[in-house]
């Protein structure tokens, strides 16, 4: 197998209500970053029925070409037929890399595709680079290998390489790439792939699909996120505080920013605070506000961390925020390592000050 035969960065796109999802647009941007480094194309891959204008939209949003299958039997997602079509596409066109969104569908589909192609799968990446990789066992330097960057066990991130196999398959966590602006002048090749259904792939069948109610909390699109951690349970002198007070202060600050600047502000929380299940915060600090590895990945303009120590699981969910303000009484809190603004003080003093300064300004 000659690795050079494998070309182009493929991105598997999904749609909702006929439109490309935001994580799909982010995925095109991720593919763009890699493709530009190696001088190859971003190829959008889409499966479904009645795709309409979506393939053209993928081009306008940064893809160079689209390979798609538009068949009635691909209308709803089912793992086995989708796996077969994607594997057949890969065998025919031989992509260098194949990126998926690290959501439930991506996690259901990409493992089977990777296994069938007997190649590597790096899950949950937050960034991608291209590097030469020296593999001691072969005493070989592999050129232009995808460095798939994912949060790691300790306090770090690790790079995963698939030097000897193609395609290099990776899933990307939503919220880590900025979608590219629409450019109507972009042109690209649209390739229609015409697969035939295989009966065996329809062993499992869909009985029903229903939409789940959408969450009212929209962390991903907030410009400012004020996030709370277990630190709201104590003040600067270590005296216990009713966490409700901390929440109310955060709400007051949020409301002020909303009204004064018309900003979209949301309240976030750490996993630790949510799982503490404090009755004072019941019904408000819920799983849908969780920022971090097992919650949402966010990148607002301003992220204000109140009483958050900053475990790596939290940091990987907010590190891409443009401005990070951290308020913590512990001078050694890891959150300070990544903060643009370090406030080593009691949040019960700092937040009222912020509010009063903002009011006075």
């Amino acid at each position, binding site marked *: 197998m000659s690795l050079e035969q494998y070309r182009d960065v493929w991105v598997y796109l999904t749609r909702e209500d006929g439109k490309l999802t935001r994580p799909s647009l982010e995925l095109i941007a991720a593919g763009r970053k890699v493709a530009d480094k190696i001088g190859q194309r971003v190829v959008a891959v889409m499966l479904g029925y009645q795709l309409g204008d979506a393939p053209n939209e993928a081009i306008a949003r940064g893809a160079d070409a689209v390979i798609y299958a538009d068949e009635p039997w691909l209308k709803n997602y089912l793992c086995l037929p989708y796996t077969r079509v994607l594997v057949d596409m890969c065998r025919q066109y031989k992509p260098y890399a194949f990126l998926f969104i690290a959501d439930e569908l991506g996690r259901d589909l990409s493992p089977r595709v990777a296994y069938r192609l007997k190649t590597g799968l790096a899950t949950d990446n937050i960034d991608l680079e291209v590097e030469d990789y020296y593999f001691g066992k072969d005493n070989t330097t592999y050129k232009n290998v995808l460095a798939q960057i994912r*949060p790691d*066990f300790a306090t*770090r*991130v690790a790079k995963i390489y698939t030097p000897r196999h193609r395609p290099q398959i990776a899933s990307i966590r939503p919220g880590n790439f900025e979608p590219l602006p629409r450019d109507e002048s972009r042109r690209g090749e649209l390739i229609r792939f015409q697969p035939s259904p295989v009966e065996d792939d329809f062993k499992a069948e869909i009985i029903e699909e229903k939409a789940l109610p959408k969450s009212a909390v929209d962390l991903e699109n907030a410009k400012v996120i004020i996030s709370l951690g277990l630190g709201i349970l104590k003040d600067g002198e270590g005296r216990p505080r009713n966490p409700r007070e901390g929440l109310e202060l955060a709400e007051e600050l949020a409301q*002020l920013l909303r009204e004064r*600047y018309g900003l979209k502000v949301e309240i976030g929380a750490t996993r630790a605070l949510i799982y503490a299940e404090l009755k004072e915060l019941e019904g408000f600090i819920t799983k849908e506000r969780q920022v971090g590895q097992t919650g949402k990945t966010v990148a607002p303009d301003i992220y204000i961390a109140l009483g958050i120590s900053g475990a790596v699981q939290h940091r990987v969910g907010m590190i891409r925020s443009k401005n990070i303000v951290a308020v913590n009484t512990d001078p050694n809190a890891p959150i300070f*390592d990544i903060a643009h603004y370090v406030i*080593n003080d009691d949040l019960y003093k700092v937040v009222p000050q912020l509010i009063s*300064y903002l009011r006075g300004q």
Partner: protein
Amino acid sequence: MLIIAMLKGVPAKTTGVITVSGVLRREEMELVMNPHDTRALEAAYYLKRRVGGKVIGLSMGPEPKLVPIMNDLYEPNQESRLVPRMPIYGVDENVLLSDRRMAGADTLATAYALAKGIHRIIQLHQEALDELIELVRNNASPAEVESKARELYNENMLPNKVYSTLPTVRDSSVRLFVEGRISREQLLEKLEEARGDLMNFIVLAGMKTSDGETGNTGPQTAEGLSEFLGITIPHAAFVVDFEVSPEENSVIAERKLGNLLQKLRIPIPCLLTLHTEYTPRVPPASVQKRVRLNNYRGQLRKIRVWDAAYIGADPEKLGFAGSPTIVGPGMEIGRPPVQKIVGKTLVFKQDMDKFEWNGKRYGPFKKYDPVGDLPEELVRELEGKGLLEVFTLKHMIEELFGGLQVVARAV
């Protein structure tokens, strides 16, 4: 039914906070059961009460670390340091894949080994029935047949309906044959049927592990099994609810796909990974009683430890050698290029053009830029000229919000 629960030993420190990892040096850390696997065991318990059979725990890893976990799985309702407490009857038996060559596996190599292990589990049970079938075919005496059946039954290899020593099970096939109530041919038919039943298995797994966090191994094991069995084994990941269909030939599963709840009919054999939100159903008592005929003798408190050769695995496809992915060195998550400590960092009061000092050029600087690593002497000089100040909360507000348009002043 063979109900196989895939379980993983994970470093204890990953279970409090869910994290992600590369290759771990597991030998150096205490291993406990992956907390997400409790859902798989609860689902296994539901299946056992719904259709009968036995629950087999399957894991891969270093024997000294995994054996204590597997031992505690026999009594999951007891306090354990290694296994979360669960209100269920424990596993019936455990299979551990343990071989140095399996170490350092990524998800592909792990799924390969687990699928080989499951294939071997099925074969083992087929071989047991084949032994009995051969005896019956070769006109062995009823006493010989019964003696063989008892031996296999004691090893947990035959379901009650084939042979049982339980007083409540009077009509096992072998018993009926020994008592002359069915013919040799009829017994053979029953045994062949029981052999065929072995292919109606279900594999269960947690939706992910607390150390690797990928969730890949479940679907990839289904793919590996399809390869080794020569039939497509479908799977569904992120199952929040499921039940066995009335005909007992499929499961009806609901699973989450983003904003969609997908309800699927999946034929058995299949593999399911259970979402953290999964809660098991409770089959009616009448059903639980009826399906006991499909159960096996009971808990076999012996862990079957299998190496690569026993499961027929190609060493080249196992462990580090069989893993396409390589975990590179870890990196620290980067510090921001500019960091300001409120109440401490010295910053410029105003924009400053480039300037020369002691023959070196500095700047330009913007208002509120920190002095950073400027020479101490220069900093003192700038301070003396009143060009620097300590960065305050007010400055921060000005920096963050000063450029924004105020839309409403009265708050």
